């Protein structure tokens, strides 16, 4: 049954409201004026130039990339490992493993932030990419876990058995057969973990120090004192990276498959 005209018009209106704020931010970032105005006054890349030459923003950008990559790698390792245990272990109850792996998804960021703050500061892990990377890895881990778990259920156990019979130890089978087969799923989870780290503010606020701040943290501190075209430029950059990554994950596999089929 097709949706009625009224419903569709309403949906289109909401769709415009969905994208309008993002577009407005992007528009205000290319203004040639020195104030956030809409529509922007003229067109100029000056605020992007300013941001990309400002050492504070550049340092923050570098920190964000470091933290995101670390979070992605750690989440991929830990999430994959947990998925193995949940899907294959005979000893660890799968409910326990799954619960532990998914729990970080349910925790409010404020709560997680306090926990990380209390522990990491005490053990001397603060003000660097490692501490925030670990914290973000915890938050990104469920994405990897769920993706790899789904991929693992699609891996035929007999393929692993064939490797064992061929003379491979369990470890060699894991490395040579199972891991390559779930690697694409783990990678997707890793990209998602990167994105969730890339624009995360709350936990980053807990673990930041004046010397170590990520892009969203710097943006946050500036936003609180008002809107600026340079902030719009940073916001646009953050959004572009997030969207690119999301597109990579959501659309990428389908494109790869289509290209492969054609060749």
């Amino acid at each position, binding site marked *: 049954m097709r949706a009625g005209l009224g419903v569709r018009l309403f949906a289109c209106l909401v769709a415009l409201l969905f994208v309008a704020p993002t577009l407005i931010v992007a528009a205000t970032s290319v203004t040639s004026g020195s104030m956030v105005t809409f529509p922007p006054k003229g067109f100029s890349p000056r605020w992007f130039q300013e941001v990309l030459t400002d050492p504070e923003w550049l340092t923050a950008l570098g920190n964000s990339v470091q933290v995101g990559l670390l979070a992605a790698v750690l989440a991929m390792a830990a999430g994959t490992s947990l998925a193995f245990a949940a899907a294959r272990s005979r000893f660890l109850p799968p409910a326990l493993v799954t619960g532990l792996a998914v729990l970080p998804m349910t925790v409010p960021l404020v709560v997680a932030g306090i926990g990380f703050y209390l522990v990491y500061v005490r053990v001397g892990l603060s003000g660097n990419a490692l501490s925030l990377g670990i914290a973000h890895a915890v938050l990104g881990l469920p994405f990897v876990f769920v993706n790899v778990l789904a991929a693992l259920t699609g891996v035929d156990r007999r393929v692993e*058995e*064939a490797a064992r*019979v*061929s003379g491979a130890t369990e470890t060699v089978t894991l490395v040579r057969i199972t891991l390559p087969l779930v690697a694409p799923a783990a990678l997707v989870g890793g990209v998602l973990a990167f994105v969730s780290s890339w624009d995360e503010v709350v936990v980053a606020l807990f673990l930041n120090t004046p010397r170590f701040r990520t892009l969203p943290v710097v943006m946050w501190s500036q936003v609180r004192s008002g809107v600026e075209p340079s902030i719009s430029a940073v916001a646009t950059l953050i959004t572009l990276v997030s969207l690119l990554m999301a597109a990579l994950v959501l659309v990428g596999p389908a494109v790869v498959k289509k290209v492969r089929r054609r060749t």
Partner: protein
Amino acid sequence: MTETATQAGPTGREGSPGARVELAGIVKRYGDVRAVDDVSLTVEPGQFLTLLGASGSGKTTLLRIIAGFVDADEGRVVVDGRDISQVPVHRREIGMVFQNYALFPHLSVAANVAFPLEMRRVRRRDRAALVERALEAVQLGGYGGRSPKELSGGQQQRVALARAIVARPPLLLMDEPLGALDRRLREAMQIEIRGLSRELGLTVINVTHDQEEALTMSDHIALLAGGRLVQHGTPEELYGLPNSEVAARFLGESNLFRGRVRREGSQAVLALPYGRVLVPGDTPGEREAVVVVRPSAIRIRPAGAEPPAAAVSRVPGVVSADIYAGDSRKVLVEGADGAELVVRCESGAPLPCSVGDEVVLEWDPGSCHIITGAA
């Protein structure tokens, strides 16, 4: 494939690369269920043994115990005199073919076949030749660069076979290797696998539920039911001389007559309320027995026809169905006690009756087989 490296039996053992496999008292329980129940049997070097049985008979579990994927609760698996029950899978030196091929989907055909060589630390430069030879043996020479996904089911199973034999393991295990293939391909592969295993002199243990496959390919068949070994012997023995009702029913069509056997003059007879079944051989005294008559041994005659001079078994009945099956036809006859009897005749010869006719089934005493002591 002309040179036969090995025959079953002691004469062929000399120089056979195949392993001697001995199963001793294997038991596997799952909860209260005995999936494998005290199975002992020996496979001679170079022998092609089929574990035959319905699903749930324990044949797959038994194979997986031999492979090492499942630990037996009791008993030993001995290969060439060595108890390998505690040896981990990867050091058992066996080849295995799985029903669903189980190729490594992310590796090329050549890399799939090379895998066992790599695991056995065969030098890299020696691998290529061995891989190509194995692929040629399964008629896939030149396919090494392909991905398994590009191959048909039959080709994939050939790759799996090449991977299983490339390292020349003394023992090849096959778990319903042809189950996923269509009938024609299956028959072609049966012959191919049999030829290849003979040529290489491998000991093969094959699992199937397909009696035709078992009869075609095997030197020996071990028939399993409910986890127990029912009968172990050559295909001829299992088909011609089933030792139990289970065996008689599982292998081929059969008509079973149960009753007391006693002597009538010089002839042993199993008396039925409605007819007489003559039993071959000497039978001292009276006893319970089951007589097995294969459908192809039975002749159909119209009810009024003269009995032949020679002593034959005669059982009356009514034709209930006449099924044409190409090279033969299957006639179902309802016996006087309501039991359904099966007769196979050549489809060329005219049938002396049609559905609904009263007929008499006759067969020579020598063409039936008696199972004594049957419960």
